[in-house]
């Protein structure tokens, strides 16, 4: 049997192969978990094409790729609206489409949101590195972003695919993108909120934070008001460093709001696992998809939640990305 594959005509802007749960178990060696930034859209794309929801698929950022299919397949595009077309004919997002060998799927720029996902029946079958196909582009772990003329091997598709009726995700079950450029982000205080003044903790949860263009899969960099610090941040052992936001090197949780001087940077999928800045707040994993879809200039407001609510949100995200959420188109 010949290898199924797709060929990259135009790579888009840093399009990568991503897979869940990501590269687990190597944080202590400095390998981030990677994986899809918006796991909600990613999993629904996989479900639409009959894959296991965690199967390797493409993450497209801000400007999507153009792909030529070397075999028949079922595809779905979810996430940011990149106005996909098949041989020049527009096709619906959040729906499955049969693609014949030789056809070309083209994505444009992101008209809403920032990241789109392209799932293909059988999944992308690039080599597994340290337990995952997820790409950490900056260090070239698991591969890098797509380049023109690259051929991506696909896995073996299930038996049902090509003859199966077209599927869609009902609108009520899709992630809802902000239309006013404002996003409510659920976050927890800690681990280092006691290094800030109590006023600064309140200020964080009551202020507008603008997403900088200097944001990527490593960190979402924010602009906003100045932080005040607690006594312990200012009067501390010199081992911790000179700046109030310095602390002796420690582990960084995924989703940490890392404070470098006065600039908060949310540490996301490709972030470093250790360093010497405090992490006064942590974004709930169920809110990551919103960080993935926020564009430069969008405003984040943080809503304080506790661990129990973070767990409930996580469970809810699991439910809307489970088999059975698809409907006949």
């Amino acid at each position: 049997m010949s290898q199924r594959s797709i060929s990259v005509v135009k790579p888009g802007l840093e399009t990568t192969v991503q897979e869940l749960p990501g590269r687990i178990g190597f944080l202590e060696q400095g390998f981030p978990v990677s994986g899809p930034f918006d796991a909600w859209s990613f999993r629904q794309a996989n479900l639409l094409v009959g894959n296991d929801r965690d199967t390797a698929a493409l993450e497209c950022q801000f400007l999507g790729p153009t792909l030529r299919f070397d075999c028949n397949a079922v595809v779905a595009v979810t996430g940011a609206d990149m106005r996909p077309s098949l041989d020049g004919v527009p096709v619906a997002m959040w729906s499955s489409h049969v693609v014949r060998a030789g056809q070309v799927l083209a994505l444009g720029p992101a008209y809403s949101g920032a990241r789109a996902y392209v799932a293909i029946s059988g999944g992308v079958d690039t080599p597994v590195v340290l337990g995952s196909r997820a790409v950490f582009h900056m260090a070239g772990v698991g591969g890098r972003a797509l380049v023109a003329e690259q051929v991506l091997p696909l896995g073996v598709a299930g038996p049902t695919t090509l003859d199966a009726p077209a599927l869609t995700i009902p609108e009520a079950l899709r992630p809802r993108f902000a239309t006013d450029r404002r996003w409510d982000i659920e976050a927890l205080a800690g681990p280092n909120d006691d290094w800030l003044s109590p006023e600064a903790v309140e200020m964080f949860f009551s202020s507008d934070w603008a997403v900088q263009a200097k944001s990527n899969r490593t960190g979402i960099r924010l602009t906003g008001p100045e932080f005040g610090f607690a006594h312990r941040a200012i009067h501390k052992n010199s081992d911790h460093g000179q700046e109030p936001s310095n602390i002796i090197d420690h582990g960084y949780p995924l989703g940490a709001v890392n404070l470098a001087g006065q600039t908060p940077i949310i540490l996301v999928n490709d972030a470093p696992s250790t360093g010497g800045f405090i992490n006064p707040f942590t974004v709930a994993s169920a809110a990551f998809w919103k960080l993935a879809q926020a564009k430069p200039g969008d405003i984040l407001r943080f809503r304080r939640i506790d661990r129990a609510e973070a767990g409930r949100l996580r469970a809810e995200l699991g439910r809307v990305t489970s088999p059975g959420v698809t409907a006949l188109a």
Partner: protein
Amino acid sequence: MATKRIESPLPGVIYLSPAPGEPVFKAPGDSVAVGDTLALVEVMKSYMPVEADQAGIFRGYLVETETVLEPGEPLCELEV
């Protein structure tokens, strides 16, 4: 002669000069050749050039530097 509006090819922050304090890429009346850089779009810590795909005479920018533009929003005008 016709006026052509050049749009931002992707969402991001627009810069009208190569670096802070430097002159803008094009001033009204400048000639534009295919491939000339008209502006930079910053997204994901990278700067992508917006290049002219047609030759003409530059008429002017329609936005200020550091404006956040969506794809399809007009950036500048050319006489082609």
